[in-house]
C-alpha cells in the first residue's frame, strides 16, 4: 500500500449490518444506539430493506447482521432473513431473545437463518442484581433451548462494566449452564448511553485484572466446551483499536431510517452528510459518497498519526472517539498515549479509581430520556 492518501479502490462492503429498528423493550444503560434515537425518522419499509439486501449483495456483501434495537420487533424479520438467505448471505441475528417464541424460531429456521447471537441484557432496571433476576434467567434458558433445538450454534454475548464485572464468575457459570459454545465478554465501549454513564460503568484496573484472571481460570477449567472471548475496554489500553477494521473498509451499517454509515455511531460526526438508501444505491454510497470516502486512507490524518510508524496498525483509532473526546474527528483517538488529548482518558480512568461520580443515578435508555437529551443538545 502506498504511504499516502486513499487506496485506489476500497474492497467490497463485506459486512452489512441492518439495524432494523431502534425500538426495544429493554433499557440498557450501556445501549449503543444514539442517545437521540427517539427523534430519528420513520423506519424503512419491507420493500426498502429487500432492495438494500439485493444492492449490498450485488456490491459484494456476504455477512449480514440483523440488529436493532430489538430486531424481533419487526414482524417482517422472517421475510428479510429468507431473502438474505436466498441471495447467499450468511445471516446473523443479534437479539436479547425477547419475542423469540418457538413459532418464530421455527419460521426463522425455515427462512434459512444461520446464527443467533443471544445477549444477556437486563430486562429490569435493577442493573446490580440482574444476574440473580429469575425472569431474565428464565427467558435466557427458554431461548437457549430454542437455539439448540434448532441446531444453531450457541453464541452468547454479555456487556461487561463496573456494576457486573465482579460477578464475572457467575456470568460464565450461567453461560455454561445455558450450554453456550461461545461466550463474548465485551467490556462496554464508551459511546452513546454508555458515555453518559461512564463514571458509573468504567471499571477500575484492579477489577479488570481480576476479571481477566478469573476468565483465564475458567478457560482452563472448561477447555473446548466453551470458548470465551474477553474484550478489554479500550480506555485501559495504550493504543486504540483499529476501529471497524478501517473506515469504509468492510463495514456498512444501515440505520432504521435508512442512513448508511461506516459504523453505527458515525452519524454523530459533524460536517459529514451521510447518504440515505432511499436516495442512493449501495454501490454508489460505498464507492462515491463523501461520507464514506472522508476517512479512508491516511490523507485526512493530523501530524500525530500521519508521521506515526504505527499508523497502519490502527489507522489512528476511532473517529467518533476522537470527536467525542478531542473535539476533532480527524485527531488521533485519545486512547492513544501519543494523542495530545490523551489526558481526558487518563482523567476518566482516575475518576474510575477514585469512584468519583459513581453515585449519580444511571441514565437508562428509553424514548423519554432520549427526547430530553435531544432537546438539551439542540
Amino acid at each position: 500500500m502506498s504511504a499516502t492518501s486513499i487506496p485506489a479502490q476500497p474492497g467490497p462492503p463485506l459486512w452489512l449490518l441492518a439495524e432494523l429498528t431502534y425500538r426495544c423493550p429493554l433499557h440498557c444503560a450501556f445501549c449503543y444506539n444514539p442517545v437521540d434515537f427517539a427523534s430519528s425518522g420513520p423506519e424503512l419499509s419491507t420493500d426498502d430493506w429487500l432492495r438494500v439486501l439485493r444492492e449490498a449483495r450485488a456490491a459484494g456483501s456476504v455477512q449480514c447482521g440483523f440488529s436493532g434495537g430489538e430486531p424481533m420487533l419487526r414482524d417482517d424479520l422472517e421475510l428479510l432473513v429468507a431473502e438474505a438467505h436466498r441471495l447467499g448471505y450468511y445471516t446473523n441475528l443479534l437479539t436479547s431473545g425477547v419475542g423469540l417464541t418457538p413459532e418464530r424460531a421455527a419460521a426463522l429456521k425455515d427462512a434459512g437463518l444461520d446464527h443467533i447471537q443471544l445477549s444477556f441484557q437486563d430486562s429490569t432496571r435493577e442493573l446490580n442484581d440482574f444476574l440473580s433476576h429469575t425472569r431474565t434467567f428464565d427467558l435466557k434458558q427458554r431461548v437457549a433451548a430454542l437455539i439448540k433445538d434448532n441446531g444453531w450454534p450457541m453464541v452468547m454475548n454479555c456487556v461487561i462494566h463496573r456494576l457486573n464485572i465482579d460477578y464475572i464468575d457467575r456470568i460464565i457459570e450461567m453461560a455454561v449452564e445455558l450450554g453456550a459454545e461461545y461466550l463474548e465478554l465485551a467490556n462496554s465501549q464508551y459511546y452513546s448511553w454508555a458515555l453518559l454513564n461512564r463514571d458509573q460503568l468504567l471499571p477500575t484496573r484492579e477489577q479488570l485484572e481480576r476479571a481477566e484472571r478469573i476468565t483465564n481460570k475458567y478457560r482452563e477449567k472448561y477447555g473446548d466446551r466453551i470458548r470465551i472471548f474477553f474484550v478489554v475496554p479500550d480506555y485501559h489500553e495504550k493504543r486504540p483499536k483499529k476501529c471497524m477494521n478501517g473506515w469504509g473498509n468492510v463495514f456498512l451499517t444501515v440505520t432504521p431510517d435508512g442512513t448508511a454509515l461506516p459504523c453505527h455511531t458515525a452519524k454523530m460526526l459533524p460536517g459529514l452528510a451521510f447518504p440515505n438508501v432511499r436516495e442512493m444505491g449501495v454501490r454508489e454510497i460505498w464507492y462515491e459518497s463523501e461520507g464514506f470516502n472522508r476517512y479512508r486512507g491516511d490523507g485526512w490524518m493530523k501530524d500525530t498519526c500521519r508521521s506515526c510508524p504505527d499508523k497502519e496498525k490502527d489507522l489512528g483509532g476511532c473517529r467518533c472517539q476522537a470527536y467525542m473526546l478531542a473535539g476533532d474527528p480527524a485527531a488521533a483517538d485519545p486512547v492513544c498515549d501519543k494523542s495530545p488529548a490523551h489526558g481526558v482518558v487518563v482523567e476518566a480512568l482516575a475518576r474510575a479509581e477514585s469512584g468519583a461520580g459513581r453515585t449519580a443515578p444511571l441514565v437508562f435508555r428509553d424514548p423519554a430520556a432520549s427526547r430530553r437529551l435531544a432537546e438539551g443538545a439542540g
Partner: protein
Amino acid sequence: MSAETGTDTCPRVSRRFRLQWEEAQNAWVLLYPEGMVKLNQSAGEIMRRCDGSRTVSAIVADLEQAFGASGLADDVAKFLELARGQQWIEG
C-alpha cells in the same frame, strides 16, 4: 502424514462452516458466525472437492487432472492437515 488423514478417508466441509464462491472477491470463502475466511486459489480448489463422497486420493487425482499437474499428494495432505486443525473439515 498423520493417521487420521489417510488417503482413503472422505473429508467434507465441517458443519460449522459454509463454503461458498464469492464473485466479488473472486475467491472461495468459508463463512461462520459473524466471520469469514478467504481461501487462496489452491485451498479453494481442494476445499470445494471435500464433499464427503471422494477419498483423498480421488481428490488428488481430480486436481492433477484439472490442472494438468502431477505430484500434488503431499501439498493436498499438508493442506488437509491444516484444515483439520482449523476444524474446517471433518471426516
